[in-house]
């Protein structure tokens, strides 16, 4: 067990808390940088998708995990970013400009969604964002002059100062840089006033308000940041697939994103990455296991949906804190070995919660 003896306030604020952090995250960084030279092409593509989904997941994590506002229509923001990027890239707009525009437009859409979201909460917010998702999907399908409708839209390869970023190695690095910068941005927000205001709203709106937190402003901000990150992810997604169509941004995609944050672990930044790894590797694992299963099960349609459903139910019942929560327990077990107690992580139930703000 590691005890950190704090001797300055700066130590309390710093991102890397101790030598272990520096070492392990440094090692992870090195591995990610050398990956294109050691990992086969196919796995590099999967790693790129993990990074893209992690960026989107970070956004939804901020909204659902840290601000307590659930969105069941997050694919709409992903789509808004993807189509903005697609249209701008095809017009020849430089890649970084298009990327910023995609994030900006998604953020603007996020602000629009936040307006009704300020008035409803819980299950009603879920319904509102769900229907918003359907509306946006319909817009993608019907606005044919811009989006190409159901026929889809081909996206040209990204270029920057004459350099082709379309190769899988180059694009992997683009995604890596965006993912690292987004993570740092989110971590910075979370260790300052803005992030604490989000957490305050999640845990008790009424006392957040009496601490001087402007609920409407911070909820809108959370929606905007979340949508901007989804837009960034969407823009990268559009380039990675180089073809987008409305059905990629339907309800299934939204549910996948929700699955990502819940299984990753609500309320943890790590959870966005762990959830993304889960979301990308799960179909692979299922298709690998098909070979070992009897044909009746292995070839049955809907196997993936069934497995996803079971996994989600299992997580909600046995590990509400997700993969990251499980990791914390494993880590504590190893650190305390052989003194780990079974009830160590048992949370006390509290019955002192009063009504939420109406």
């Amino acid at each position, binding site marked *: 067990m590691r005890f950190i003896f704090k001797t300055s306030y700066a130590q309390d604020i710093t991102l890397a808390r101790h030598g272990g952090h520096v070492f392990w995250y440094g090692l992870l960084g090195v591995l990610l940088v050398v990956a294109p030279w050691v990992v086969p092409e196919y796995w590099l593509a999967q790693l790129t998708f993990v990074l893209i989904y992690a960026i989107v997941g970070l956004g939804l994590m901020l909204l659902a995990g840290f601000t307590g506002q659930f969105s069941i229509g997050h694919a709409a923001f992903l789509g808004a970013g993807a189509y903005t990027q697609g249209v701008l890239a095809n017009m020849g707009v430089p890649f970084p400009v298009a990327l910023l525009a995609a994030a900006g437009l998604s953020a603007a859409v996020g602000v629009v969604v936040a307006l009704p979201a300020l008035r409803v909460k819980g299950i009603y917010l879920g319904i509102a964002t769900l229907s918003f998702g359907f509306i946006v999907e319909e817009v993608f399908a019907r606005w044919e002059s811009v989006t190409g409708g159901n026929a889809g839209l081909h996206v040209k390869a990204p270029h920057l100062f004459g350099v082709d970023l379309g190769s899988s190695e180059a694009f992997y690095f683009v995604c890596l840089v965006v993912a690292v910068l987004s993570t740092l941005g989110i971590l910075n927000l979370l260790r300052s006033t803005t992030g604490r205001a989000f957490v305050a709203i999640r845990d008790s709106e009424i006392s957040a308000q*009496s601490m001087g937190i402007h609920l409407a402003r911070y909820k809108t901000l959370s929606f905007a940041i979340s949508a901007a990150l989804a837009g960034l992810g969407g823009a990268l997604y559009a380039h990675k697939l180089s073809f987008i169509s409305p059905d990629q941004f339907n309800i299934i995609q939204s549910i996948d994103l929700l699955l990502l944050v819940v299984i990753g672990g609500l309320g943890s930044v790590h959870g966005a990455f762990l959830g993304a790894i889960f979301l990308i590797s799960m179909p692979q694992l299922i298709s690998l296991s098909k070979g070992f299963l009897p044909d009746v099960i292995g070839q049955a349609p809907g196997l993936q949906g069934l497995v996803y459903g079971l996994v989600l139910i299992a997580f909600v019942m046995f590990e509400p804190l997700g993969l990251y929560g499980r990791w914390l327990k494993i880590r504590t077990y190893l650190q305390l070995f052989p003194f780990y107690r079974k009830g160590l992580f048992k949370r006390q139930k509290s019955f002192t919660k009063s009504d939420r703000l109406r």
Partner: protein
Amino acid sequence: MSDLLLSATDLSVRFGGVLAVNKVSFEVRRGEVFTLIGPNGAGKTTVFNLISRIYQPTAGSITWHGDGSALNLIDQPPHAIAALGIARTFQNIELFEHATVLHNLLIGRHTHSGTGFWRELFFTPATRRSEIAAREKAEQVIELLDLQHHRDAMVAGLPYGVRKVVELARALCTEPKLLLLDEPSSGLNVEETNDMAFWIADIQQELGISVLMVEHDMTLVSKVSDRVLAMNQGEVLALGTPREVQNDARVIEAYLGTVDDVSSLRRVA
């Protein structure tokens, strides 16, 4: 500067058919501990919720004199109250459960420590300085209320008595001029109640913060209060020193009933 801090005039609020607060007027002076007492349902917490702008009064006004000039509190949005210098605690404890004690206190610094979204996104030196300043202030409050032991503990795992103190600490972190305490001693044992009385006196005398509190424990009330307002069914019964109010005939009637009431219940043999 007058010695008036907050004044409520003919305050009324109606929820459907219930007149929860009926023409209540009182004044809180600078540096005093002013206590609201009364049986359950008297409208004490409703008065608190009117001051912290969670409820909108049906009639009447609340004026804030904290900044030297009279300010109509009813015109202010709920989130602006903390910045004016009014902090509160809640009867049922409303802490941020899934955050540490230090985090809760830092949220209390919200109105003092923000450096804006873009600066915080890049964590500029200004943000770093503001974060350190917020921690220094929080540490002073931790020192005052002896919370060192619980600094990095999650609130969700803390016992009730400690949570009560954490909530007080969080309110103090906003650097209020007026502190609203909703039943500070409810759920505390005798020892913890004595600590609370001690701290309330400290807050009043050392920090110079005025306190408006709702309390049932008359020992605590008489120990710390300068003036007491007794309420029943939304109306003011009596106002004065703790001793005066305790001996007021109407107050005794509200709590204990009258002799007639009892005699009517007596079974005739």
